[in-house]
């Protein structure tokens, strides 16, 4: 019998499932598809900005205590210091174990600064070991190398922007046919191509010719090879722990009796597939991840259990007038309100189901992208929710 079904295979779902499986529970992930892990940079943003502030946060662990003061309903405000450190330490140990070690100043509590794909300085807390050369607090000049004809990566733009911020950088190009015969290539295909040692050697030798003494080199752009690696490694690790990971499962129905969910049902080629479990953990994402959906009338719904939501009342309140308003847009804060044990609650604060927990971007009262807290919220709340679910 499955003890815990985790709905969603983003970072929150993967971490929650891993924690539960590590604790010896029988776990199954049921997910519609993969999500934000395949687009973000593979680094772990904990907290980069407060709403309405344009100055980035230097010490996110300290700032998270302020969040609790200023926004008492924010997911971070529901977590103790111990829960946060436990989640981050567990993540570091886990990534070492699965062969994708992360670096970061977890002891000092400082954010790392890495260049974004347009050359902005991006605050993040943990980064894959392979990205450490991009640390902008280091003084060595940077050489940003693109492949001519490759879309979505513009070395001149990156170098210029970095230069304006006081980080010396210059741009250079190599021909695309150094690595591939394709006329058009995605970063993932490029990564596959570079799995071939001969092509990797060709690239390395050309890079050596381009680089001057003391320079560090930045190559290739967004669309997340590190995120995909992390997802695949976590999925493999879960399978080794005896958990099931099933994607392409679109949950279309559920059955509850009293205050307990008995099963969820996913769409299939024949009859729908029932997933029975003692406990369920929602990690389906927010508006962007598909955990929360809207229709043309402005109605906002949680897609699995139709949970009560905190959301703007009508469509006219979804957006502010300015696209880049530092306060963010109210619709992106829509989500599921939860209690301190990460169980969804209704407007009166009463628990909706006794055996359902929620984690990640599906939670209300946060704007993970604006706050640059997407992965941090996923890891800390995923970890905490799984621990609470395990205790019951």
């Amino acid at each position: 019998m499955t003890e815990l079904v985790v709905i969603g295979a983003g970072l929150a779902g993967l971490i929650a499932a891993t924690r539960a499986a590590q604790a010896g529970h029988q776990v199954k992930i049921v997910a519609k598809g993969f999500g934000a892990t395949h687009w973000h940079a593979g680094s772990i943003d904990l907290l980069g900005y407060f709403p309405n502030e344009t100055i980035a946060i230097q010490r996110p662990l300290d700032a998270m205590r302020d969040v609790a003061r200023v926004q008492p309903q924010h997911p971070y405000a529901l977590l103790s210091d111990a829960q946060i450190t436990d989640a981050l330490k567990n993540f570091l140990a886990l990534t070492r174990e699965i062969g994708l070690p992360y670096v970061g100043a977890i002891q000092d509590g400082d954010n790392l600064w890495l260049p974004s794909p347009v050359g902005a300085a991006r605050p993040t807390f943990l980064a894959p070991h392979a990205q450490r050369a991009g640390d902008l607090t280091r003084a060595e000049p940077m050489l940003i190398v693109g492949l001519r004809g490759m879309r979505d990566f513009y070395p001149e733009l990156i170098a210029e922007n970095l230069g304006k911020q006081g980080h010396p950088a210059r741009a250079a190009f190599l021909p695309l046919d150094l690595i591939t015969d394709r006329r058009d290539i995605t970063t993932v295909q490029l990564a596959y191509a570079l799995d071939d040692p001969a092509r990797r050697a060709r690239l390395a030798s050309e890079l050596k010719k381009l680089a001057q003494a003391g320079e560090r080199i930045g190559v290739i752009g967004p669309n997340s090879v590190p995120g995909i690696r992390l997802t695949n490694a976590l999925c493999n690790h879960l399978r080794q722990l005896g958990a099931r990971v099933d994607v392409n499962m679109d949950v279309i129905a559920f059955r509850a009796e009293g205050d307990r969910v008995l099963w969820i049902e996913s769409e299939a080629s024949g009859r729908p597939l029932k997933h029975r479990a003692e406990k369920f953990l929602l990690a389906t994402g927010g508006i962007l991840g598909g955990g929360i959906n809207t229709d043309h009338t402005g109605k906002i719904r949680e897609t699995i259990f139709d949970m009560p939501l905190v959301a703007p009342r009508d469509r006219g309140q979804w957006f502010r007038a300015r696209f880049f308003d530092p306060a963010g847009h109210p619709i992106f804060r829509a989500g599921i309100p939860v209690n301190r044990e990460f169980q969804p609650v209704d407007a009166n604060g009463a628990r909706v189901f006794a055996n359902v927990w929620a984690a990640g971007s599906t939670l209300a009262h946060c704007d993970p992208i604006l706050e640059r807290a997407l992965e941090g919220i996923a890891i800390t709340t995923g970890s905490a929710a799984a621990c609470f679910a395990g205790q019951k």
Partner: protein
Amino acid sequence: MHTASWHSVGMTLDECIKCNICTAYCPVAAVTEKFPGPKYAGPQAQRFRESGQLKSPDLSVDYCSACRVCNEVCPSGVKIAEINARAKAQIVAERGIPLRNWFFGRNEILGMIGNLAPQIANLGFHNPFSRLMAEKILGVARHAPIPHWSTRGSFASWFNRTPRLKSENKVVYFHGCSTNYYEPEVGQAAVAVLEHLGYEAIVPPQNCCGLPMLNNGEFPAAEKLYRSNLAKLLPYADRGYPIVGTSVSCVLVLREEASEMLDIENDQTRRFKNALWDLSEWLRDLHEQGKLDTNFRELKMILPYHVSCQARAHRMGRPSLDVMTLIPGLDVREGNAKCCGLAGTYGYKSEKYEIAMKVGADAFRFVRAQGDDARMVTSDSEICRWQLQHGTQKLGRAPIEILAAAYGLYDLDQRRLNTVALQKSSL
């Protein structure tokens, strides 16, 4: 004519947000530069295939293996594999079909002909010279694991020859071409298990599900086959009999792919669909109702289980794994390779054989990694089993053969029913 199903495939095109997750997971695009990736060949190129377009502008979609991994990982529900299949059909409609692909579409007729004199047919085709000629003249890959015709006669002839258990509880068995002509043992194991559980197996007249034709873009011919099966089997569905199959890809075609791709969803196809089961899925359901005899004998072996892409495309979880884990002593190990590479008739084509072998490398590696003690490998699709056997030299066995062995009905090495099973059926 735009019916609901045409709509449901075509309209998903607009759900594509160009995220490229499909490209990141496409096992073919990962190993060859001849295929740009599902997003490019599918939703993107589809915009240039609108009606009125004289000729399809890009033929690279031919390198899509139809494994459906793209559908599986798409977060937006775009039916990429179906868009690609329709694009292939459009190319065939415009330019005609290569002789080789025409042959591949008619594996049932090939099975029938070879079955007349299997020894001679095997000798005639499966010798180095004939295979070389087939490669040079037709483009059929010389080393590809094309099955041998069974020298034990067809499954249907065995079924009709031997006395069968009669029971109130009846189950219709869809064997598919491969069981009928190449691996009748799989069907024998299925019938033995059904009868062991007290069910009467019915094997009505049936024909090829049409998958090889769908994969090779011959939609009108595939539709004939689908409609013929519908006519032959729907009466059983309407009597309330479950129709079970051991070939996971045939069941997928009958249950979903054909009606969806050919745009013929109606009340009849829905009734048919609701009666169809993958046999392991049906057994798992039986177990969930507490009706499956779990009195298995111990099978002490390590068994790598490759999850075929066709099984995943069902979205039914891992029924074979669920059922096989009930067998004491059996150490089933689930692999996570995306595809064995062969994908229907894809890996049989000389220009695609190498690609198929590279795609299969992950699956081969997983199977080999289970060590020399693992002598056998299992998968729900016969195609995968043949490819894995080809790539790893281990013996391919169907999950139902494993189960039949665990009931003491079947010898996995000899691939024969035990005398127990034979006596039982003659009661």
